[in-house]
């Protein structure tokens, strides 16, 4: 029997970037908030033994416990989806900070083109450029409208970077200067400039210098210790909700943070939410928490699953193309890289940072002409230096056996002498790529798991072919001894693919028929439910998603405060 708790103004599900930002903004405005987090509370003192590649990266210390909850996946509707039993492609965060604790910290803005992709593509290339099975749509917000929220997020997190001409207009420069340039970054800069491109230093949440944000939070500079992705930052140099927005919310006295609490259902009467139902993951106790406003701010997968398991919104149907919950699931495309090997040069690749690298703006979005190309959008082409941890990095030239004397010799020979010119390409939504509930598999609390139906499309394969030629051209200029290009995009493989940027499923838009939430992330079908996170993206751009999902969270916070005052649909 669940314990029914007294009603509160706002309950937030999930304490990562989206939930943390909203909690911080609401509590600063004097609103009492209950923050529910399925994992544990965290501070930098938890990371004193943080430089442990095995524990954090390979044994996924900061990730969700799959024994309690996972997803099922299949490449198309004719297959039976099977559970992701251990981690492969996706790493889903757990605990206060969420994925914002274990991320690399690359913090971009999306392009003006992204927010009006359908309108702008049709204007420039005609209505038949994109086939109807690609369900692209405008976001219901323009770049100019979202710009102030990007600015706010960048100031809070202290993003380090340099202004790029080919990108959207900025009201302010980045609050801190760009990260340092390492020899491989300088070389990338040199060769790409020679080719006529415009390289820039990747915007970073790993602080380039000491910074004090508008909330009074002061953090030290990144030490380039090479333990970012999969790891927490023991210096607090990497922006993480646990060292920025969460402590600010706690300091107001208005945040009631409940950890080890897993929300399994949003209680509702079909029109509005009445609260949430959650289970204490340690004791098994069940609670009903009534609330005036429910903010769903967990990871993409769980946002979609919670709505479907609660009967909120209309589930997407791939047969008819109707319904919105689960629609436009997108990923990212990373084929097309060229790996280079030097026989007699060694770099200090043991050091680095999660957001240390250089990138080209020239092949992103619609910054190049697509008239004669069989795809839209583009890719960030980049060289990064995350720090080559030794278990994960054993790149050897093709033809080398995967074990034995020759493998050992080559993997040691090139340990500090190889790196890729990489591609991170946009992902366009397709009618057959979607999320729904699995008919067979359930989580530890008896609720159905989320089922993913996804594979790369023709658009993705074309983009990879195109970008592969560019990475090859750049790599050639490096004058390396060995060059290997990955020319074709292989089918999606839940074990192997190396990207964890999942988006969509609760998408935003201007039309309640084709989207789930409005530009304040307020549900069309339940006005007191706000669904924040990358689940709101109608497509995925060629950038890392955190900057955009955080900007949208600031806008959602503004919307929630407005809703508390006036009620009703805000758009």
């Amino acid at each position: 029997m669940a314990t029914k708790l007294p009603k509160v103004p706002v309950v937030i599900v999930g304490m990562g970037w989206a939930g943390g930002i909203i909690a911080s903004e609401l509590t600063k405005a004097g609103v009492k908030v209950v923050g529910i987090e399925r994992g544990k509370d965290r501070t930098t003192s938890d990371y004193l033994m943080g430089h442990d590649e095995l524990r954090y990266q390979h044994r996924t210390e900061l990730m969700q416990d799959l024994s309690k909850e996972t997803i099922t996946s299949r490449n198309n509707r004719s297959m039976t989806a099977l559970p992701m039993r251990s981690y492969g492609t996706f790493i889903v965060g757990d605990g206060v900070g969420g994925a914002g604790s274990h991320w690399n910290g690359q913090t971009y803005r999306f392009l003006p083109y992204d927010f009006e992709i359908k309108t702008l593509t049709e204007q420039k290339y005609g209505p038949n450029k994109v086939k109807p099975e690609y369900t692209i749509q405008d976001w219901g917000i323009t770049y100019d409208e979202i710009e102030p929220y990007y600015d706010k997020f960048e100031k809070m997190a202290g993003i380090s970077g340099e202004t790029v001409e080919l990108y959207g207009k900025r009201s302010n420069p980045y609050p801190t200067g760009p990260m340092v340039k390492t020899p491989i970054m300088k070389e990338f800069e040199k060769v790409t400039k020679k080719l006529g491109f415009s390289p820039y230093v990747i915007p970073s949440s790993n602080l380039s210098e000491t910074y004090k944000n508008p909330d009074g939070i002061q953090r030290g500079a990144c030490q380039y210790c090479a333990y970012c992705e999969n790891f927490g930052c023991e210096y607090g140099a990497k922006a993480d909700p646990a060292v920025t927005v969460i402590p600010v919310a706690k300091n107001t006295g208005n945040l009631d943070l409940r950890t080890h609490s897993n929300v399994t259902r949003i209680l509702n009467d079909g029109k509005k939410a009445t609260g949430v139902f959650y289970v204490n993951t340690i004791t098994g106790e069940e609670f009903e928490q009534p609330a005036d406003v429910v903010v769903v701010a967990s990871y993409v997968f769980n946002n979609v699953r919670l709505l479907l398991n609660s009967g909120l919104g209309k589930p997407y149907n791939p047969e008819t193309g109707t319904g919105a919950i689960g629609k436009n699931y997108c990923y990212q495309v990373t084929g097309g890289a060229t790996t280079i090997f030097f026989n007699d040069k060694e770099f200090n690749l043991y050091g680095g940072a999660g957001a240390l690298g250089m990138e080209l703006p020239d092949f992103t979005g619609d910054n190049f002409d697509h008239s004669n190309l069989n795809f839209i959008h583009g890719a960030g082409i980049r060289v990064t230096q995350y720090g080559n941890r030794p278990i994960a990095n054993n790149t050897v030239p093709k033809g080398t056996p995967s074990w034995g004397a020759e493998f050992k010799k080559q993997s040691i020979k090139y340990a500090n002498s190889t790196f890729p010119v990489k591609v991170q390409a946009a992902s366009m939504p397709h009618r057959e790529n979607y999320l729904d509930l699995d008919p067979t598999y359930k989580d530890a609390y008896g609720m159905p798991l989320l089922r993913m139906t996804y594979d790369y499309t023709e658009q993705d394969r074309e983009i990879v072919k195109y970008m592969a030629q560019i990475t090859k051209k750049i790599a050639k200029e490096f004058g390396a001894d060995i060059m290997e290009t990955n020319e074709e995009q292989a089918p999606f493989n839940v074990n192997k693919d190396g990207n964890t940027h999942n988006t969509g499923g609760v998408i935003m838009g201007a039309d309640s028929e084709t989207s789930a939430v409005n530009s304040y992330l307020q549900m069309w079908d339940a006005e007191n439910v706000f669904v924040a996170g990358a689940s709101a993206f109608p497509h995925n751009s060629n950038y890392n998603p955190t900057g955009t999902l955080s900007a949208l969270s600031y806008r959602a916070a503004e919307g929630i405060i407005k809703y508390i005052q006036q009620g009703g649909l805000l758009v």
Partner: protein
Amino acid sequence: MSENEKNQQGVQDKTRRIFIKNSGLTVGGLIVGGAVGSLFGIKSDTKTEPATAMVHESAANPNEALMYFNQEQYQTTAAAAERIFPKDESGPGAKDLNVAIYIDHQLASPWGVNAKDYMVGPFQKPDEKQGGQLRILRKDLFLLGLKGLNDYSNKTFKKKFTELEAKDQDAILTDFESGKAGDLSGVSTNVFFKMLRTLTIEGAYADPMYGGNKDMQGWKMRKYPGSYMGYTKEIQSDKFVALKQQSLHDHMGH
């Protein structure tokens, strides 16, 4: 406060000052989240461990004992791992790095019983693009694999795996890798092989506290420094900077 604790406090304060100096972090204003406080207990990267201390420790290392394997299983694992990562002119192989000790400890850990994996049925045969769908636990699969190595060696060469010449051991492992060696209670030998390979690499390069990477020699071979507080200076250098290896043990602040 005991004399010992006082000394310890002194070390920590010094460390904190060094970090603040290195990072340019000035104390003042509102510091939340423990950005400075968390550094207590971390030793600075200027500290060096005398080489003799390390040799002494390795001479009587209580970590070199078995939690899971029996002697024969240990020997077979050590022999197979050595073929995956053999001793050569660049340095020690899996045997000298204590990789089999590492594997033993891992199989005895929660990872060995798939504690963080989704283990609810039904277990169905996956498409090659879907993840593994095994009901069998890692610790059990590994023992089946070891038995499989000996059975296949006996069948092929009339000897146990550990008694074979290196080239014959390689032949056995090659058949395990390709799956030609058949099944182990319904699981392809390839699945066991992949697990053995992954564990061997981990055992060569994981922090030495896990039992392998003996005396950080795995790291030394590839000039990996291990665990430092930062590399701001090194990463900007045009020359390769070789650093003396440090492990998490150096962060204990004892």
